[in-house]
């Protein structure tokens, strides 16, 4: 500690007036957002993960236009081994695994992104409302959170999907309905402390409405934790969707997703391992990449945490 102080003081004393003002200018012209972006861009693991994520997005949404086979094409032979024409072989009904993987990744990504966006929107709105208004609304919203937390998400999702056909957007909506609670709790906690600060009081004194205070004053100040939790929600949604579909209770054929692909092919683990490891690698790299991006964002938004945290 003492060393750091000495170095800092030494730096100030030693710097010549010219170079000092130059550094000062450089520091002044950077906004908070630029600082965060710089720190994020320098986070090596997060940048690699971002690359992997972008690659997977391209694989899922551009890949089908490039690749010879469509996910619906049924080729003549079932269970062909890996070859030049079928890099990951074919499935039992003779569909090309690579084309299936593109389609499955696209659906899993769509579902995960919708879940994360909806869950973040609901969670932030409810959490900020509860933390800012307090009193009765706070009690009602937080009891609602308690209530939703006691019902196992996977069971309710399964029942609803069963009741309303297994379209992918139904799965996304149900998962979102049960994914916003943790974000609401975090947002509420932050709002509780932020709402005590002078700038909120000033905004209220100026006659700003509650929605304006929440979305113009509170939310921008919580953008760090909101972004991080939204990213982590994507990773969680990828895994939950896959698990639900793996049980046969999520996305239903003819729609497909990574979970459905694993479900249909894991019986071939011993004889045709590529049919299992292909979707496995896509699924794990997707969730790992998103988790690492979230970690990088957390470090970028709050560099103090890096010292203690992993």
């Amino acid at each position, binding site marked *: 500690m003492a060393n750091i102080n000495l170095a800092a003081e030494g730096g100030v004393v030693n710097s010549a007036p010219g170079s000092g003002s130059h550094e000062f200018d450089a520091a002044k012209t950077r906004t908070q957002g630029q600082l965060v972006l710089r720190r994020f861009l320098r986070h090596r693991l997060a940048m690699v993960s971002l690359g992997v994520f972008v690659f997977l997005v391209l694989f899922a949404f551009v890949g089908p236009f490039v690749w010879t086979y469509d996910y619906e094409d049924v080729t003549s032979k079932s269970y062909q081994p890996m070859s030049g024409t079928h890099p990951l072989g074919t499935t039992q009904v003779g569909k090309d695994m690579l084309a299936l993987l593109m389609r499955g990744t696209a659906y899993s990504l769509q579902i995960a992104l919708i879940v994360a966006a909806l869950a973040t929107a609901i969670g932030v709105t409810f959490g900020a409302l509860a933390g800012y208004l307090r009193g009765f609304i706070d009690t009602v919203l937080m*009891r609602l959170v*308690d*209530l939703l*937390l*006691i*019902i*196992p*998400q*996977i*069971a*309710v999702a*399964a*029942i*609803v999907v*069963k*009741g*309303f056909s297994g379209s992918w957007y139904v799965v996304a909506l149900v998962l979102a309905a049960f994914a916003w609670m943790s974000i609401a709790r975090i947002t509420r906690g932050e709002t509780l402390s932020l709402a005590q600060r002078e700038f909120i009081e000033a905004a209220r004194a100026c006659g700003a409405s509650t929605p304006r205070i929440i979305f113009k004053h509170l939310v921008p100040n919580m953008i760090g934790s909101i972004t991080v939790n939204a990213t982590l929600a994507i*990773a969680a949604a990828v*895994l939950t969707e*896959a*698990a639900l579909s*793996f*049980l*046969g*209770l999520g996305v239903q054929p003819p729609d497909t997703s990574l*979970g459905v692909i*694993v479900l249909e092919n*894991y019986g071939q*683990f*011993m004889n045709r391992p590529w049919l*299992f490891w292909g979707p*496995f690698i896509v*699924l*794990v790299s997707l*969730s*790992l990449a998103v*988790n690492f991006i979230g970690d990088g964002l957390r470090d970028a938004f709050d560099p103090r945490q890096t010292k*203690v*945290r*992993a």
Partner: protein
Amino acid sequence: MIRYIIRRLLISIPILLIGSFACYVLVATAGNPLAEMRFRPGVTEADLKAAEVALGLDKPVFIRYWNWLTDFLSGDWGQSIALGQAKTAVFPAVTDALWTTGRLVIGAELLALTLGVSVGVLAAVRQYSIFDYLATSTAFLMFSMPIFCVAVIVKNYGIQFNNVLESMGLDRWLTTAGPRPGGFSGSFGEVIFKYTGTFLLPTVALMLISFAAYSRFERASMLEILHSDFVRTARAKGISQSRVIFKHAFRNALIPVSTLFSLNFGAVLSGAIITETVFGWAGMGTLLVNSVRQFDPPMLMGWLAVTATLIVLFNLIADVVYGILDPRIRLG
């Protein structure tokens, strides 16, 4: 403390009531249990009407919920109405499944907790060592791993291990199916052999996932404590390193993990559901999947009521344990 527990129990009653009503409405709107009957040959409109009256489906949902609730509380959990189940009673079906799942979950969680805490503490004490990097990256990897993939991998390598054992002239040890309903028979050694063989693979699969969360969490809280002032004071007093770590830091770093252990119950349960499905155990997971597939409202309600009650109980335990371990938290 007793007053606090009683108050919390009283609060959970309305939560459970509202929760069970929400579940009932959900199950009632999700589908018509008689939909399949309509397409069976020889079923007339009058038969359908009679079945509807017999099941009480002609009454409004409030009255049906009230009837279900009073029956449920008096111990009559109803009968399965799925096809081909010969009207299985819900109560024994759910409790049997719970017993199967419980044995799996408790073993896996205790193992995961012990391993996770030890690895987390070691990684924190030797921060930035090779062990730390290894443990942290393994935990991160497991954390991002879909549990069904872990279960599939563990299961298949278990089968290969069996093949190796067989080629060495030994018995196949690991079982990739659920425990037999009648329990294990034979001599003591045989029972141990069969028991471990049956439980080892699913326990390992389930453990790996929880282990990741516990070790990450324990490492973070241990690091935080090791950097705190009172630990520095203890070191400055000249207390030995091991005493500082175990008497001062470790005890405090256990507090957050112990609450995670109880709060994690919902996640562990869904992990168990998936593990069971892969290994074909007849536990809560299989019961849920079958009841949803065949659309069996009484069974689903029994399932939901039991799990919701358990989750509420575990949340209460988490709060009580937190209060006992950390005297700074005042309950009440």
